[in-house]
């Protein structure tokens, strides 16, 4: 993908400035500063415990940051209830453990938020949900319960559920880590399609192939700091920082 000219013309979708976050004594984020442009796909890499997940969870305020500013689509994340509401309905999130609602059918899982948050009529919401299930390749499972699906199918439902809100940004928090190897591809394929369709995406993952192929930029984090930012080409072939080199040597 040609990302260079994209970055210049598109406005910022996510802007983080000096974001700090502590869990008790432990500082999880140390002055994280980064911007993500519209339609950009950013993959966040780093060893476990490096604060990737915390950062991504701060962006739709599942965690509250303590210092610095996070602005998503022009809305600053503060204690303001209205802003939180707005961000939540504009940012879709996919979790490592899928977190589907086990007591609802797949269709109800997908239509719940459009019906009650977007205030969409039920019939419209269902049509939309069926389209999305078609898109992620499991239209025939609509009336089943999550417990009856395989991990890969569940994760695809989770993606459909997030997309049903017509988000401007999609966050992926290690979407393939809890999957059996044979199911990883089906989820990554859906994510690739999404990226090609022009969705702004921020992906925390360990899938290097995905990062190399799809990402516009790669952000490498370690112990709560952003160490290096660059295109996949640059990142995998010619990293500047020692810590990046060490990480790559361990993982490749």
């Amino acid at each position, binding site marked *: 993908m040609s990302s260079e000219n994209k970055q210049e013309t598109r406005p910022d979708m996510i802007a983080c400035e000096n974001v700090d976050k502590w869990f008790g004594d432990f500082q999880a984020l140390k002055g994280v500063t980064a911007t993500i442009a519209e339609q950009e796909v950013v993959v966040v890499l780093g060893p476990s415990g490096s604060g990737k997940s915390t950062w991504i969870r701060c962006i739709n305020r*599942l965690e509250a940051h303590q210092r610095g500013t996070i602005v998503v689509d022009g809305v600053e994340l503060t204690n303001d209830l209205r802003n939180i509401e707005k961000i939540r309905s504009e940012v879709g999130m996919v979790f490592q453990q899928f*977190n589907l609602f*086990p007591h609802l059918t797949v269709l109800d899982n997908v239509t719940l938020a459009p019906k009650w*948050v977007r205030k969409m*009529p*039920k019939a419209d919401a269902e049509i939309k949900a069926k389209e999305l299930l078609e898109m992620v390749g499991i239209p025939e499972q609509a009336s089943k319960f999550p417990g009856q699906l395989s991990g890969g199918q569940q994760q695809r439902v989770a993606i459909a559920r997030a997309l049903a*809100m017509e988000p401007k940004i999609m966050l992926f928090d290690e979407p393939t880590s809890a999957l059996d190897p044979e199911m990883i591809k089906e989820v990554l394929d859906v994510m690739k399609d999404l990226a090609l369709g022009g969705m702004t995406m921020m992906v925390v993952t360990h899938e290097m192939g995905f990062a190399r192929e799809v990402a516009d930029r790669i952000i490498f984090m370690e112990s709560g700091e952003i160490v290096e930012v660059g295109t996949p080409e640059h990142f995998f072939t010619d990293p500047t920082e020692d810590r990046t080199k060490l990480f790559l040597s361990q993982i490749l």
Partner: protein
Amino acid sequence: MNEIELSNPAKLPETPKRSIGEWVKSNLFSNIPNTVLTIVFGFLALYSIKGLLGFILSGERRWAAVATNMRLLMAQGYPANQFIRVWFTLGCLMVLTGISLAIWRSNGVLKIKRIGTWVLNLGLGAAIFASLAPVSANARGGWLIATAVLLLLGYFLKIGSDKSMLPDDVPTVWFSFGCLAVLVLSLWTVPYGHYAFTDGELIAESGRTVAMSTKLPFTVMLLLLIGAFMLAEVARGLVHIPKAKIVLSSLWLLSPFVLNWIVLRDPDFDYGRVFSTDIPIGLLFIGFGFLVLYPLTNPSIGEKGRLVAIALLMFAAFNWIAAFFGLYPMLQKVRISFLLLALAALLAPNFAADNRTRLRFISFWAGFIIVLHWLITAINSPSTLDLQGPTYLGGFSLTLFVAVLTLLLSFPLGVLLALGRTSSMPIARVLCTVYIESVRGVPLITILFFFSNILPLFLPAGMEIAELAAIVTGYTLFSAAYLAENVRGGLQSVMRGQYEAADAIGLTTSQRTGFIVIPQALRVSIPPLVGQAIGVFKETSLVAIVGAFDILRIAAYVVPAQTEFLGVKREGLLLISVIYFAVAFSMSKYSQKLEERVGLGER
């Protein structure tokens, strides 16, 4: 003791490969200590059974005290000429049960072999009875014949299904109907005896079957049950099943209130007031609700809606405070309605959606107000039924009434308390915890005393509370604390990820709680909740101590005070032990089944 065996056929000892002798040897006499145990416990068991039978069948026992007072025990002094209402109520419940059985398609089947085992066990029970009971030689002969018949029947059922002379299984529903039919039939044929107080005189004829006023209604009830079931089976194909289920569920929820009203209704009910006051007020509130809620459910209204709702809430609260100081009078119903309207307005933003959803929300509110107004009217019109005894409800019906009402009322309260205790708000958490723990720390009886003796002291001048209402209030507040703990267990089992996922798709806190958290929590808490329900049912007996005429009070204090049966206490207590046991035991068996089902759940 047959119940035990009946319920555990799967754990019964026989394995087909071993002969009876081998089974006895390995299970009873495998080694010396085992043999000693068998002998000791065998003597113990035989001695207790013999003692119990001797106690029950002793000539000194006066079972007539129980038989004569059966109506008193069941419904206290309900006037005989109005009894048709009670039967009507019961009939409604029967029809509802029949239809529900058909709609919820209980597909359960019973293996004929299993039924055979039960019949064999019954035969064994009869054999023990025949050999140990202190009865006349003739009666012993009769019991021996019964034993032989039962054993043969059981053997036939077992062998018959083995050799495929009989079908493998029968539907559970029809088996239960069959058992009930046998019981009802026995009312017409077996001389249980005819006992009654007629004009203060004791009639006791042991050779007759029970009175027509007993056997006829019971027969009708059974026919209603079976008839409703069969009709509903036929109608099943014609109706939309999920809708029918919703209708039936709401009927079940409403039935305690409605049927209670039918039973206790004042014969001279003031319909004029209903038309002049109640219906206009109801209509007014429906209209008012529409005017308020329709704009509030508009998705674009935003925080302004919340402010309007808070203003309404303050107005409703002001109404209550004013009422306490007697400032300006209005019907209590109006105050309650205002409060509910304010609460609905608070909820309204959650239902902001397309027009259909909005209208559905408003019509739900309207339906709720109609039902509520009707109930308040019904409760407020005092019964002038001429009942003997200080309270208007009594006997086993009071026990059931208190238990069901308490469970219904304490459930929402318990859920709220559990939510409060697990919430992230420290003050709410502390308040709920203090409430739950202090209520759980004291005995129920002190709380009942508090509410029956002391509560009137706390009420504003002029406000009174009926004793039964005070008792139910106290019991509700008590059981809500226990219920909250059960629900809390369920709430804690809901994964953190579920909360996060709900937040991430933009649900508000109340939507998250209502759509995601509570359904999952309740599913997990069902078995402990059933256990709690059993506890509530059993402890209903405590209302006897604070003066309500429930079945226990009648058996332990009323009957022994009758001149004919002075001091006859043990018989009645034994009988109600059996009644309590039957209800509680079947509920606990049901909960065990539920537990297995939840354990095998979808996840």
